[in-house]
């Protein structure tokens, strides 16, 4: 059945407009990263160069170090979130219990409440604990958006998990550790991998949490990118921006089929 609002020709046109609009903001970033002297009113740079990339990849601009910090924080936050989040996902996905709705609200709230509201309060606590300005403090505060995300995705994964497999293994004499290692883990592993990849991206994208808790001493890639973009170094900002979107592209290539509106996987990535 054809849709009354989109005739065949309009559909093609609509698709074309949509593609252009989706690509448009990303194009100048790529062009700037290889531009030498791209001044108004030139539509294209007068000369091309790899200088911004050479600068971005050398130690002078601080990008490699910042890249390491960003990856380390995201990986650490993801690991912590998996450790505490997977059991909670199981509880929400496989059990009905009193107060479940309240628990769901508690897990939903950090997804919706903007980070700035939480981080200003936490700053005082972290200051006292000596966690401000440290990588560990930033990693912990990243748990605020990352953990609920992992719990929600894992609840979806466990909702499709069949507990009878575990019962069978137990009846054959397997202990709890053996059941987890040989039955549960292999069954949830694909879903857990998707949760981990997107949890990584959620941490990867954080700005204000890092700025407030890191106090400018923990310089992750987005902070560096912001600094170059606001200091008028469009060429270097372009190169960093390209580096900064790469993990997302890789994750998408691996998981495209999970990223539909049906799964919860995309909920957290909107932030």
């Amino acid at each position, binding site marked *: 059945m054809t849709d009354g*609002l989109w005739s065949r020709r309009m559909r093609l046109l609509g698709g074309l407009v949509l593609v252009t609009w*989706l690509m448009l903001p990303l194009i100048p970033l790529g062009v700037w990263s290889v531009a030498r002297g791209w*001044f108004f009113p030139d539509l294209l740079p007068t000369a091309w160069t790899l200088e911004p990339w050479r600068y971005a990849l050398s130690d002078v601009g601080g990008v490699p170090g910042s890249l390491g910090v960003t990856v380390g924080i995201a990986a650490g936050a993801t690991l912590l979130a998996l450790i505490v989040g997977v059991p909670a996902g199981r509880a929400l996905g496989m059990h009905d219990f009193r107060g479940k709705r309240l628990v769901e609200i508690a897990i*939903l709230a950090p997804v919706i409440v903007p980070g700035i*509201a939480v981080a200003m*309060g936490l700053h005082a606590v972290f200051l006292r604990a000596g966690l401000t300005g440290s990588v560990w403090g930033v990693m912990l*505060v990243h748990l605020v958006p990352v953990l609920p995300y992992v719990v929600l995705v894992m609840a979806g994964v466990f909702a499709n998990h069949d507990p009878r497999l575990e019962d069978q293994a137990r009846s054959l004499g397997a202990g709890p550790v053996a059941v987890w290692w040989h039955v549960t883990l292999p069954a949830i592993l694909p879903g857990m991998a998707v949760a981990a990849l997107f949890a990584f991206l959620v941490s990867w994208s954080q700005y*204000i949490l890092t700025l407030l808790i890191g106090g400018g001493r923990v310089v992750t890639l987005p902070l560096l990118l912001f600094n170059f973009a606001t200091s008028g170094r469009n060429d270097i900002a372009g190169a960093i921006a390209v580096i900064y979107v790469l993990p*997302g592209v890789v994750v998408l290539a691996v998981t*495209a089929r999970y990223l539909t509106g049906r799964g919860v996987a995309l909920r957290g990535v909107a932030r």
Partner: protein
Amino acid sequence: MRVALLLAPALSVIVVLFGGGMAVAVSRSVGWMPVIGLTDPSLAAYAVVFADPDFWASFALSLHIALTSTALAAVLAVASALLLRHSFAGRGIVAFLFQLNLTVPHLVGAIGILYLFSQSGAFARLAYQAGAIAVPGDFPALVFDPYAIGIIAQYVWKEAPFIGLIVLANLQSVGEDWEGVARSLGAGPWQRLRHVVLPMIGPGLVSACAIVFAFAFGAYEIPALLGASHPPAMPVAAYRAFTDVDLAQRPRAMAMSVVIAVVAGVAIWAYLRAARRA
């Protein structure tokens, strides 16, 4: 009992980090800090904030940004979802870009918008080549502007695919049978959209919009990059007060971030209400 054990670690982390952060923000906003001997809570910071016309300017600006971005993104999302549910040449590319867009951090989108919309940006250059302007200053201010056009453009660019994918999934799970029935009863395309499609995708659309609204109201880096310096958007105003050398500004910063959290609370309520109807 078993459930409680499974939930305990995650809930403790959320209660301590999220609940604790919010609790400290609220207690500092009312000036209750027992550690330094302030045990007499007052609403003074709120009185100061609410009497300040600059606060209301920031509040109105953020409300405008959040409402306009959400409305535009929702319309575009529904149109795109209706487009994407049918096959056409290039559908795969559009669907891929929709997903790709979700993984691009907001900050990158904001810088892209800056390079497109600024007075020496790509659009201004196109306008020059077309003979419409002579110098960059002739080009209308689309970033750092009082109407927050650049900020809204960024949110719409990033959030329309997010809402669109959720709407698309709803459309696909509902199917087109009801629309067929409506059509056979003589309903035109707009009537089918209004009376059949929208009611069915409503809950999913509203819950996605609630998330987008709260984010657009409270996100910092986008208005910090693309916004006018005065009035600043709410989160930028709160951050400025927080980092002010005058520590007396801190309670005001906390009060502003509590206001942001309250607005987000309204969004949570809308989300839950929509989710119940789903």
